[in-house]
């Protein structure tokens, strides 16, 4: 065993591990410093955690789209962030119209349902069309080809919506029933955050049940294992793939509304960063794995929210919040390098050779 270690460990490994350990030491040292200095009160920590959880729920929902598509096609649907954006951006207009009509606060539940419906429909339609037009012709192409296509699609969608709706920011109206906070002892949760968390959990449970227990879900899983065999067993592979994209689109649409409830501004570029972070979540949890997406999303949300104060502040880095995205991307880089199968493991590991 030891002999094999010595022969297989190369300079590359040493450098990578060195880097990893360096960062880990930094994180631990920073955390200790922060906690020792006691810069933050417990209430602030609670606040950060709640914020992280709410954010994490949204990431998890977007991550679901990456995970479902990856599970079934082994492809990173880079355009998924724009599918998220398209639903959310469109829904802002619906929300605005409802607000103008005075329904927004007199029929809040109905309004919310309408807005959700708009977002989910738009996202699902876009997801469906993207698969049909851009991905389907390339299903058996080398791996990089669909990825480049997906990047192209992402830009096309981003700038199409910029052209359609304009390059400005569009506000999403606040709802009266979501104002204020609920207090449990020391813990204070904004109602918007509560809505995001509860909404994300409900949606995850629904989608998990679909994948796990329905006929469609079974078909999806068998297509994910082996397309040819699934086709031989009479499964319409194209239809299942389309359904997968639809499901991913719907969850992205819902995620869009939850995101807007937390951060009430929409613009054409709003998808990029959450999309990349959701992808990170998917990889963190184990891409292709539905519970993994949830776990990854929550973890990433927490790290991003708590991280800057916890370990960057302690290292004496000024304005640590500027680097919260850098934390997420660093996690992305390191998880892909050290454990590309994620925490829960990729459902189907790729074999080489």
């Amino acid at each position: 065993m030891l002999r094999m270690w010595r022969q297989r460990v190369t300079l590359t490994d040493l450098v990578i591990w060195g880097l990893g350990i360096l960062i880990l030491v930094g994180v631990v040292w920073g955390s200790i410093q922060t906690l020792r200095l006691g810069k933050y009160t417990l209430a602030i920590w609670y606040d950060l955690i709640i914020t992280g959880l709410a954010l994490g729920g949204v990431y998890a929902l977007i991550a679901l789209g990456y995970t479902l598509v990856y599970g079934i096609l082994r492809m990173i649907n880079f355009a998924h962030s724009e599918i998220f954006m398209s639903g959310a951006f469109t829904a802002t207009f619906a929300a605005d119209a409802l607000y103008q009509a005075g329904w927004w606060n007199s029929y809040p539940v109905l309004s919310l349902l309408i807005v959700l419906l708009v977002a989910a429909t738009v996202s699902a339609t876009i997801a469906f069309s993207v698969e049909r037009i851009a991905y389907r012709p390339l299903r058996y192409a080398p791996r990089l080809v669909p990825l480049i296509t997906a990047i192209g699609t992402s830009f096309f969608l981003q700038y199409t919506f910029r052209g359609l709706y304009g390059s400005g920011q569009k506000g999403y109206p606040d709802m009266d029933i979501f104002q204020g906070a609920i207090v449990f002892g020391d813990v204070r949760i904004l109602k918007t955050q509560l809505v995001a968390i509860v909404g994300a959990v409900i949606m995850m449970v629904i989608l998990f049940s679909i994948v796990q227990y329905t006929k469609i879900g079974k078909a999806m899983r068998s297509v994910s294992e082996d397309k040819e065999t699934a086709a031989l067993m009479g499964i319409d592979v194209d239809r299942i793939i389309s359904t997968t994209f639809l499901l991913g689109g719907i969850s992205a649409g819902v995620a869009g509304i939850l995101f807007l409830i937390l951060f009430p501004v929409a613009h054409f570029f709003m998808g990029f960063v959450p999309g990349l972070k959701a992808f990170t979540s998917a990889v963190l949890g184990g891409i292709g794995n539905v519970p993994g997406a949830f776990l990854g999303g929550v973890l990433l949300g927490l790290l991003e929210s708590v991280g800057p104060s916890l370990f960057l502040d302690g290292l004496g880095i000024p304005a640590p919040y500027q680097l919260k995205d850098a934390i997420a991307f660093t996690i992305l880089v390191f998880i892909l390098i050290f454990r590309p199968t994620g925490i829960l493991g990729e459902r189907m590991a790729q074999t080489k050779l």
Partner: protein
Amino acid sequence: MQISAPSFSWKEAVRVGVLGGAIAILISLVGMVAAFGERYIVYGWFSMGQVLFLAPILFMVSLTLRREKASTSSKTVLHSLLAGAVGGVMLAVLVLLGQVINLRAVLVNASPRLYGMLTFNQGLPAGPFVLIAVTALLGAVAGAYHLLPPRWQRTLSQAVIWLILTGLMRDLIMNIVVRWRLVGELFKTVLFASSGLQPIGAIVLLLLIGGLVYWRSGQPAGRGFSLKNQPPTIRWASIAGIVLIFLTLPQILGVYFSEILDNVMMYILMGLGLNIVVGFAGLLDLGYVAFFAIGAYTMGVLTSPELRAEPLTYWQALPFALVISFISGLILGLPVLKLRGDYLAIVTLGFGEIVRLLVLSDWLRPWLGGTQGIQLIAQPRIGSMVLNTQEELYYLFLLGVGIILFIAIRLKDSRLGRAWMALREDEDVAMAMGINHVVVKLLAFATGAVFSGLAGTIFAAKLTSVYPHSMNFLVSINVLALLILGGMGSIPGAFVGALVLIGAPELLREFAEFRYLVYGALLVTMMVTRPEGLWPEERRRLELHEAEEELKGAEPVPAS
């Protein structure tokens, strides 16, 4: 989009019309039609905006016609007319809808101006009918075009394409010919208007190009002009001519176009670099801008008096910048070596973003200037002359491109180049050929990084300042898109791609807003229809054998 019908039926005609109409509506609503409304092709007659909404309908009709070779009857014309009309009806519906409800509340570009353009400014009752008539007529023309003999088809299509291109390039052409007074006057009075072509000029041009194409397609298919086939005197003369043209280009073009040329060349530099990483070695690097940033910032940090008491000159700082680029290529390359292709792409994207965020942060502000960037970066001097105008910087870029081109060509046909390509084709087998994939991949990363770093240093010197927001992901996408358009792995492809994708948007200012929309559509279209690019990579002939084309015997059927 799979359109497969045995013959061009009525149903199919409607379908094609709807598809074309949908694309036309999308192009109208994202604002392209209105934006190009003032960019006339033939002054007062039709503008690029109109081309943009008519072209999709026309394109869909002719695409479908081309798929069915058999149809030669007059029915074809009728069907195409219908398809065109359907497309027109869809646009007309948009116009009418716009009159009834205020689409503009949501769709910012659904403006009266757009409606005016769509209806050829014919006002309300007549306008939509004019629109439908025009599209129907164009559809019929497309159908009739399809019935023409190939020679006439070529003549017609090329004449129209050149007409449009000449109309669009009016400013550039005028800028050149204005130097010769007589020609300039002639062009100004006969050919060009204040925007686009004069109607008379357009007709002359159409006949001229048409005649030329018709005549040439009648000639027996001659061998293309190749420098290699010419006697040495002509060969050297041609090469000298080309070099001379490149050397005098800024004088011919003037300041404004020199700047465009500088940008094109900067992207050629980066394109040649990314071509090594993606095209040769097959490693999709989406964080390529990081090395550009590292080159530019090293130059800034070393030469700006803001950050150093004793700033270096450009030439003193250049080797440092290149070495640091090289080393950062190695450092960023190391961790990603073990990753599969698509993960590698995402990790490099992550790296690019991390570099940008770090540069932006207050944390590194004392060293890198934060959001303010770095100013007062040194410009290169030669003797007592400071290269600070666009024309002078052109020569710096030219020198850079020359050196990098030389290196790229040399590397392509070397032991290392072959190793990169082998890795791209099949990594496992390449390793079994004795190729150390770690070393070879790292060299690809580092070489690409140096090219990009060099581009960064010249960029910094050109602007005398660097800002973090000019180092974003979009730069990487620009480079990737130009490579894919030109052809991955192809060195001339990088030039073609940069000229088209970087040059064209700067010549047509209206285009800037839609740049990434078009790039996105382009990436998808190229990957689906022509993944090898416009100028595909060519393999060098080493055995130099003539009779290689005919295959000996048929492929044996593998026995089970």
